[in-house]
């Protein structure tokens, strides 16, 4: 996703709601028949208000989505004066780009890196906001809770350039940690450029940036658990760990499942800017993921058709993954992402 970070709101919980609960999809309530013309006379200001945003999405979202057809072209940027004329003049080659793509070992390496990092972060990142939220929720003092929240939400609003900068200044070869170790007579390891530990480094960065912010959904879900449930189970003799297991976790289950679906649907994205920024320092073998592969294969080298094919592959797999994950959620009785009642 090229525009992954420009708008900071893209946190995981973005699909945390059914399309429109006000209107169940199946049975649409028949309204009294008002002729279209008088409805238009009544509603035209609403349409006018929606138009500019819709137009922007049309141009910058749906038009490029259609533009994915360059994946089936031997797109030559110099065939015309602009992208449109170049597109019209370029030759159609069917699945040629995909054949090259699937025959390219660098593509499989990037895919492998991406999936490894996703799996690693599913284990070492995903549970963290849940655990931290439960911990923070058990803090009695509201002031202390508020202070911690203020502090740990902050890095979410930093750019990746800033986050990597802070890591370089703290853990890099000339950073604070290295400087303290050297003064203690220990030769510091260079954490920022070591490909073997890169997966730990990027996970640490993601945790630093977003694990705190990730708590916000869980804290909201925790606040909605009926306190009487705790009291009753305590009266029935359940200790704090049993209450955690039998009251807290079931209360969080819908949110956890929802975020898990979103994460799985996004399994081929592990963060683009974060990797692009560090790819040169660490090297391609460890730091090339699908998104950076697309970037380097297209924009840098001018091989647009090939890059588009890689991007289209990623988008298609992502769509399938999210639909499958949603289906599985329905099967195990969760509401999931796209509800269909």
């Amino acid at each position, binding site marked *: 996703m*090229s*525009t992954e*970070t*420009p708008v900071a*709101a*893209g946190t995981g919980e973005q699909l945390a*709601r059914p*399309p*429109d609960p006000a209107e169940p999809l199946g049975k649409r309530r028949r309204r009294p028949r008002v002729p279209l013309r008088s*409805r238009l006379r009544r*509603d*035209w*200001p*609403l*349409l*006018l*208000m*929606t138009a*500019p*945003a819709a137009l*922007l*999405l049309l141009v*910058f979202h749906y038009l*490029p*989505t259609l533009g994915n057809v*360059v994946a089936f072209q031997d797109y030559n940027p110099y065939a015309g004066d*602009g992208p449109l004329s170049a*597109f019209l003049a370029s030759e159609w080659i069917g699945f040629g780009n995909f054949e090259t793509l699937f025959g390219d070992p660098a593509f499989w390496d990037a895919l492998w890196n991406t999936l490894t990092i996703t799996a690693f972060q599913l284990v070492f990142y995903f549970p963290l906001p849940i655990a*931290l939220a439960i911990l923070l929720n058990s*803090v009695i003092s*509201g002031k202390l809770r508020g202070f911690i*929240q203020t*502090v740990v*939400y*902050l890095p979410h*609003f930093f750019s*990746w350039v*800033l986050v*990597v*900068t*802070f890591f*370089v*200044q*703290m853990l890099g070869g000339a950073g604070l940690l290295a*400087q303290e170790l050297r003064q203690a007579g220990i030769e510091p390891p260079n954490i920022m450029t070591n490909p073997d530990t890169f997966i730990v480094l990027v996970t640490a960065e993601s945790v*630093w940036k977003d694990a*705190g912010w990730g708590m*916000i959904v869980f*804290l*909201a879900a925790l606040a909605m658990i009926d*306190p009487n449930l705790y009291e009753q189970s305590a*009266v029935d003799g359940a200790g*704090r760990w049993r209450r955690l297991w039998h009251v807290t976790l079931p209360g969080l289950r819908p949110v956890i499942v929802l975020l898990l679906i979103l994460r799985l649907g996004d399994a081929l994205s592990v963060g683009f800017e974060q990797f692009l920024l560090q790819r040169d320092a660490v090297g391609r073998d460890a730091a090339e993921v699908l998104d950076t592969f697309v970037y380097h294969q*297209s*924009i840098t080298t001018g091989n*647009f058709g090939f*890059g*588009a094919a890689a991007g289209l592959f990623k*988008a298609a797999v992502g*769509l399938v993954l999210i639909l499958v994950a949603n289906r599985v959620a329905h099967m195990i009785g969760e509401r999931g992402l796209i509800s269909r009642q």
Partner: protein
Amino acid sequence: MNNTRPVWEEKPTAVGLAGKGAVLTVMALVVLIPLWSVLVTSLSSRKTINDAGGMVMVPKGIDASAYVTIFSGGIVTRALWVSTMVTVAGTLVSLTLTVLAAYGLSRPGSVGHRTLLFFFLLTFLIYPGLVPSYLVVTGVGLKDSLWALILPSAISVFNLVVVRGFFQGLPDELLDSARIDGAGEFRILWRIVLPLSRPVIAVVGLFYAVGYWNVWFSALLYIDSNDKFPIQRILQSMILQGQSPNFSGQSLGSLPPTQAIKMAVVMVTVAPIVLVYPFIQRHFVKGVIVGAIKG
């Protein structure tokens, strides 16, 4: 939330309390130490920095010359100006269009409501890749224009859904009575809905503003001229690519230490976020979570 322990809850054990305290302390320090260290280093003299070995934790006097240097013209000053313009213009554009569309989509049963809503929500599931986006943005003539940093990402459908959810939570009677009094939709939005929606506008405005301030990759893609680089590009080239900033008109000897200048650039990149965010943070849960759940 209340601030007392319920009577039925057992007293915490000493080990539990210590462990909890340790985790909370680590959580706070992990964020605060880097910020503190960068701030102190940016305000340190050459001697302090050399004595400490690069990053300073304990301040010894205040030397603001690094800030004087980066604000006295040159590439950092210009980049800050560019980023400020992009952030202000972009946030205005985004907020205006988002609020309008959120209101336009807030009434089930209006003409085309379901189709339009589907058109907006479908963007969550299908998205264009990098290459076609690049071709469209350059194709409509935005290469090397600051608008390339604004228009393609001006609408966040997530933010739109949050605002729409908030609007739908407003009491219907209020809007209906205004309608009976003959107020048009624009007037209702401006006079009645917006004044009641300050928390959600504040939060969504912060999200947009932060997004624009943090713009880096779009600038890498679309902006070629140095004088249009936003601050994140400068930060990247100075610290992550190790290029020295070029401050014309000053001999090297009279410049403050490079390390202090670098850290000062980090600080001015962080500062707007750290300064604005606490005022808006209290609306987070109210504005966003409630909006999202209702949406």
